[in-house]
């Protein structure tokens, strides 16, 4: 860590007011007016990749608002958290979106939910709050109660369809047979070619962050975190627990770390198989879909065997895990996985030998490497664009240090390479599980004396099946969490669809959207009520529903 701090001082010099080393990262305080130049220094000088923007209502701590910009320094294997403190009366900060494209959503989210004004933002539309949301009402401020339900004045306004001779706006969602989640994409098409895409999601917002900061105690939050997403829920669960453990300085017993890694990999296998199936389904290749889900079913059985539930495993608490694995179940894991691997091998070979599938996948949905860096994309989407980023290697957690595995990277930047990344990862996951089972240490599974001191910061990243998932936590009083920020992988990946869908034939659009494995329920955890506010027009909910339904 000393090296990291030294490097930071070398690059940024006197702009750092003070620094604090936390587990897995360094927090540096800078003056609001220095922010843009500091961010420039981090991205250009140190190769930092944008991770997340966190807004904190710190009036209960030091009577200021905080805006925290997190960058991942993959080479130095650490995160750097740049914090600016803003006045409690009139919080204002310069936008960094002009130099870091990925920060677009993050900054708008901070403005919408905490009322921190972002100056000079290139796209200052409301991202989150609906029309008619009362002004000066910010849900994540501490004076807003989690169960408050403000009345919306005049929700939705007049629907004015976009009129243009050539470009037609085509709705895709919110309820589309191919999307099993309510999301709305508006594809702007010219003939058969997509020229632009507008994403309006945030239908699945359930007020999770606010709930975690108010009604629940810190040991109840893991169960909520798990329900951020039903497919990769355990990732959020682990990530939250790690963030709190990092904040409180809790040492988790080794066996618990192994169990976490084990279950994370089982989850990855199930998620990738699920995605492969859905991808086949999107291609109209239902045979592949059925086979993929047939292979996946024993993995679900495995998950239930190890954790007691097919999904939403619920075995994590701050300080360790609740449920041990026994010899019997481990033997079954090894046996079942061997069978799964054989079946999977056959499946992959058959799939890649179907000419139509290959033709649809190759060369569609291109995301060039430079754009991938700028948008800060994560996971298979990044690795399919030639970026070697994997939290398991860059910021090792749980028991991943103990296993050796390859990070598959493909540089064709198309849908095929994203598929191949996932295909390879399943093999790696199976190998990781085998290695971990061989080394599984004995001992306790829960740390003794779990105590969480107040107002400590913790940050943690976990490699979800869809990419890097990060959680930021400030611990609070009375065993509660003061601030809990979740950044799911799809949150960084979805904005990059704009690039992937550009100039892509309409028929490839659903596949390309599916190729990032978008997880909307993860992304939407924060947003309040949605009214479509497109670039040129607005649609009220009922019109939207009618347009999108069939």
């Amino acid at each position, binding site marked *: 860590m000393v090296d990291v701090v030294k490097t930071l001082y070398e690059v940024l010099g006197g702009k750092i007011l003070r620094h604090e080393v936390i587990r897995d990262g360094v927090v540096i305080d800078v003056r609001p007016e220095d922010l843009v130049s500091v961010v420039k220094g981090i991205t250009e000088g140190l190769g930092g990749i944008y991770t997340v923007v966190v807004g904190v209502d710190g009036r209960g701590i030091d009577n200021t608002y905080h805006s925290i910009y997190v960058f991942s320094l993959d080479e130095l294997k650490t995160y750097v958290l740049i914090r600016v403190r803003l006045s409690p009366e009139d919080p204002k900060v310069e936008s960094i979106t002009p130099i870091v494209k990925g920060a677009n959503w993050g900054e708008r989210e901070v403005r919408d939910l905490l009322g921190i004004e972002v100056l000079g933002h290139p796209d200052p539309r409301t991202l989150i709050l*609906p029309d008619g949301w009362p002004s000066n009402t910010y*849900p994540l401020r501490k004076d807003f*109660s*989690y*169960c*408050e*339900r403000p009345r919306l004045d005049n929700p939705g306004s007049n629907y004015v369809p976009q009129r243009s001779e050539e470009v037609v706006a085509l709705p895709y969602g*919110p*309820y589309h*047979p191919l999307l*099993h*989640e*309510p999301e709305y994409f508006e594809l702007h098409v010219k003939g058969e070619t997509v020229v632009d895409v507008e994403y309006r999601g*945030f*239908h*699945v*917002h*359930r*007020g*999770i962050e*606010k*709930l975690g900061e108010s*009604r629940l105690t810190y040991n109840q939050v893991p*169960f*909520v975190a798990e*329900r*951020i*997403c*039903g*497919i990769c*829920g355990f990732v959020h669960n682990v990530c939250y627990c790690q963030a709190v453990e990092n904040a409180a300085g809790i040492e988790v017993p080794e066996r618990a770390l192994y169990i976490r890694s084990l279950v994370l990999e089982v989850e990855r296998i199930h998620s990738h198989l*699920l995605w492969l*199936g859905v991808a086949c389904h999107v291609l109209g290749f239902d045979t592949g*879909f*059925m086979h993929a*889900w*047939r292979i996946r*079913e024993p993995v*679900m059985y495995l998950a239930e065997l190890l954790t007691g*539930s*097919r*999904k*939403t495993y619920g075995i994590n608490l701050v300080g360790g895990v609740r449920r041990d694995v026994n010899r019997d179940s481990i033997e079954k894991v090894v046996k079942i996985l061997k069978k799964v691997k054989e079946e999977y091998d056959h499946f992959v070979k058959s799939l890649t030998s179907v000419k139509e599938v290959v033709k649809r996948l190759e060369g569609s949905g291109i995301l060039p490497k430079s754009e991938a860096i700028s948008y800060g994309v994560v996971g298979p989407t990044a690795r399919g664009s030639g970026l070697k980023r994997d939290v398991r290697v860059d910021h090792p957690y749980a028991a991943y240090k103990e296993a050796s595995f390859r990070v598959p990277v493909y540089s064709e930047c198309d849908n095929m390479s994203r598929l191949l990344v996932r295909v390879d990862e399943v093999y790696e996951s199976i190998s990781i599980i085998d290695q971990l089972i061989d080394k599984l240490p004995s001992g306790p599974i829960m740390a003794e004396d779990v105590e969480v001191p107040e107002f400590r910061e913790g940050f943690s990243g976990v490699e979800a099946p869809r990419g890097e998932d990060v959680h930021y936590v400030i611990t609070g009083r009375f065993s509660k969490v003061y601030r809990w920020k979740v950044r799911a992988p799809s949150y960084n990946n979805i904005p990059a669809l704009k690039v992937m869908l550009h100039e892509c034939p309409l028929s490839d659009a659903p596949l390309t959207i599916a190729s990032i494995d978008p*997880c909307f*329920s993860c992304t939407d955890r924060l947003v*309040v*009520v*949605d*009214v479509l506010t497109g670039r040129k027009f607005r649609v009220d*909910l*009922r019109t*939207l*529903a*009618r347009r*999108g*339904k*069939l």
Partner: protein
Amino acid sequence: MSVYRRSIWVFHLNTGSCNACDIEILDVLTPYHDVERFGIKLVASPRHADALLLTGPITKESLPKVIDALLAVPEPKLVIAIGSCTCGGGIWYDTYSTLGGLNELYRVLKEEYGIPEPPTVKVPGCPPRPEAIIYGVALALGIVKQKYSTTKVRVE
């Protein structure tokens, strides 16, 4: 529910669920559980459906769409609520952005639209395992009887 002697077609509507219930619904359709053996089929439009599968706690933003979809299902219709979120609101039963479950939706339907409650079966679980969903459908079709009922015990 004798009206459903034959195959029922279902439309799946995610009202803000975390996906867990949705993937279990898909699981029910895939080889291991294959509900098509009962003639149950997932359709792409509520207008083709006999039953509506609801998942999620019904977020405020999805409410108008849920109502529209519910109205689009022709009579006689059936609602099958999958998962604890829909049945009783789940963890989010009182948060600011959800309605908190199906009962609240029915209240809104009755008060604001004057629509009576459609016949409903609720399948709790987080998520309910595929067998539990099949059991719920069987209950809806009147093949099986409800296994549990409210009990009240007073002790000293």
